[in-house]
């Protein structure tokens, strides 16, 4: 029983991590007023770059940076197009969802002899796990704390972004630009620069989310690796009412239901796992219905600002 609980806690943390990175990234972009429904595509691109660079250089930290850089670049372009050329942000996001996976798979086939998967990365070349060999294997603490370093990074990032958005000048300005760009402009804030910056930071974080999938949780990139997690993250931002703690809770919920599916699959319980897999989506819809509030989205979200 104790071990089951430990397993669930550990697996919840593990599975919520990639979504958490991506949702935190999405949050920053949306806070500045830029919608990015291309989170999925950016996550795929980040996951691929990370796996490819790790495979080639043998250093997962280079891989992590590459993943972050790739998605950051995509989000930078998305930001530029949205801010300076008045792009339809939703449509641009749809384009990212096509281009991210397409270019990744194209490159993958080029680099790895026509395969759509990158070669499996040796455990020693993956991102390290923390608290290995400290607790007795299979013990409660081992299940809970013996995790990929990305799990701790993600939780730390929650704190950092919470402070960034609420306590720092730049963070507060990003929020003001997403709420009322005109008022911000009159106070001397450069709306355009801030929005492009927020979008770029957002992409860089989303890329880490992708990387946490391909070089930490899993050990290679494949076309079905991300499988909708970017969309879940998109939902988590809304589900979390555009607040850092809300996003954290939403991601933990998704991670929990996902690990519940795996947990029940490993027991003798005769409960169809496919029905259980629907749970997070039902829960999201029902929760959104119960705790509806209209005012939580940034006011200028998705509206191009013209001087």
């Amino acid at each position, binding site marked *: 029983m104790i071990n089951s609980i430990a397993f669930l806690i550990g697996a919840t943390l593990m599975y919520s991590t990639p979504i958490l990175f991506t949702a935190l990234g999405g949050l920053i972009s949306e806070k500045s007023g830029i919608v990015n*429904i291309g989170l999925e595509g950016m996550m795929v691109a980040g996951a691929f770059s990370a796996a490819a660079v790790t495979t080639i250089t043998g250093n997962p930290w280079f891989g992590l940076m590459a993943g972050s850089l790739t998605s950051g670049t995509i989000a930078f372009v998305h930001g530029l*197009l949205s801010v300076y*050329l*008045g*792009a*339809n*942000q*939703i*449509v*641009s996001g*749809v*384009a*990212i*969802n*096509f*281009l991210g*996976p*397409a*270019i990744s*798979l*194209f490159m993958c*086939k*080029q680099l790895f002899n*026509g395969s759509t998967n990158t070669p499996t990365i040796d455990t020693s070349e993956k991102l390290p796990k923390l608290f290995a060999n400290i607790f007795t294997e299979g013990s409660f603490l081992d299940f809970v704390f013996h995790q990929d370093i990305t799990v701790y990074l993600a939780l730390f990032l929650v704190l950092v972004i919470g402070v960034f958005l609420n306590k720092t000048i730049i963070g507060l300005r990003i929020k003001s630009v997403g709420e009322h760009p005109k008022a911000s402009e009159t106070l001397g804030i450069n709306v355009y620069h801030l929005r492009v910056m927020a979008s770029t930071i957002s992409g860089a974080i989303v890329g880490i989310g992708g990387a946490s999938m391909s070089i930490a949780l899993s050990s290679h990139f494949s*076309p*079905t690796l991300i*499988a*909708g997690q970017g*969309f879940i993250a*998109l*939902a988590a931002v*809304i*589900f979390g009412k555009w607040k850092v703690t809300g996003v954290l809770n939403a991601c933990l919920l998704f991670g929990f239901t996902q690990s519940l599916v795996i947990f029940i699959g490993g027991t003798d319980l005769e409960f*169809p796992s*496919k*029905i259980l*897999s*629907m749970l997070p*989506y*039902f829960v*999201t*819809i029902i929760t*959104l*219905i119960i705790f*509806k509030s*209209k005012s939580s989205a940034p006011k200028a979200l998705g509206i191009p600002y013209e001087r």
Partner: protein
Amino acid sequence: MLSKITKFKSIFLIVTSIVLGLVIGSIILLLAHYNPLQVYSTLFVGIFAKPKYILWTLLKATPIIMTGLSVAFAFRIGMFNIGAEGQYMIGALLAVICGYYLDLNSSIHPIIIIIIAMLGAGIFGGIAGYLKIKFDLNEVISTIMLNWIAFYFYNYMIDTPFLNKGMNVSHKIKASAKLTIISSNDFLEKTNTFLYDLEKVKFHWGFFIAIILAVICWIILEKTTLEFQMKAVGLNPNASEHAGIDIKRNKILGMFIAGALAGAGGAIQVLGVNFGITTLAAMQGLGFEGIAVALVANSSPIGCIFSGLLFGGLRYGATKIQVPPISAPSEIINVIIGMIVLFIAVPKIIEVLIRNRGEQYDK
């Protein structure tokens, strides 16, 4: 007159986007050491050289025309339907169930099935409209969630006693339910090559059904006041309500129709091509392709036929370029589609390009 000018302008922007998408595609091919001329000519020949190839293109285009219509229709009433994917799956699921269990004459069996699939998928789509109206739940979120619910439900149903428990494939539908035009006949080869092609490609009535449904959509949008009412709501919600426009009914109805269209797509694919369904490992992506189809069509139902054919052709042609002698990754097609969508997202790029050229002429 103004509308004619804007219509011309939007068609111009779309065609330019397509051309630019192909140009970017060729640059990427060049960078990857492929000859873009060779790739595009193979693509072109691979799509048009034989009647058989064109039939294949029509087959490939049919499902995405349907999901495209679904997204386009929702766009026109002011909803963004990301849920075509799930609605399509519900349609396919219902088609298999009705195709296996219903016992009807072959002249009406497929029609009844498609109607049931449309009703079921329509209700499924309508949920997103209802949630939007009743609880102010963003349809982008609800349709993403509903897609996954449909996905797991689809896989769950295949694995029940109802549809072949323990297997990853469902039962096959009855012969009376099929949309096949010509069933296997060996003598055809000698008598008529075109009919032989029809049989060999397993061409079915689905493409024509898609066209009929596109025309019906066009009639609903152009000849009824549904879209006009929704536009009025967008411009001035209060005035529209005073004028007696029922926003709630219209939005739910619009999403119902959108769902029904995607569902018809799923049903057609089952009745015409697959005759059954198999467990899915991942989403098929037809709903997303539908978004691209609708965007390139500028949300016009008739336009969806053409943009669906464009993407269907590219998809089918891709199978010709990934084999020797070219062996280019077929993903280049998705790169091209993505770039086309990107240019459509940013019409200003094209406007700036043209303006600069104009200024050069002035000098």
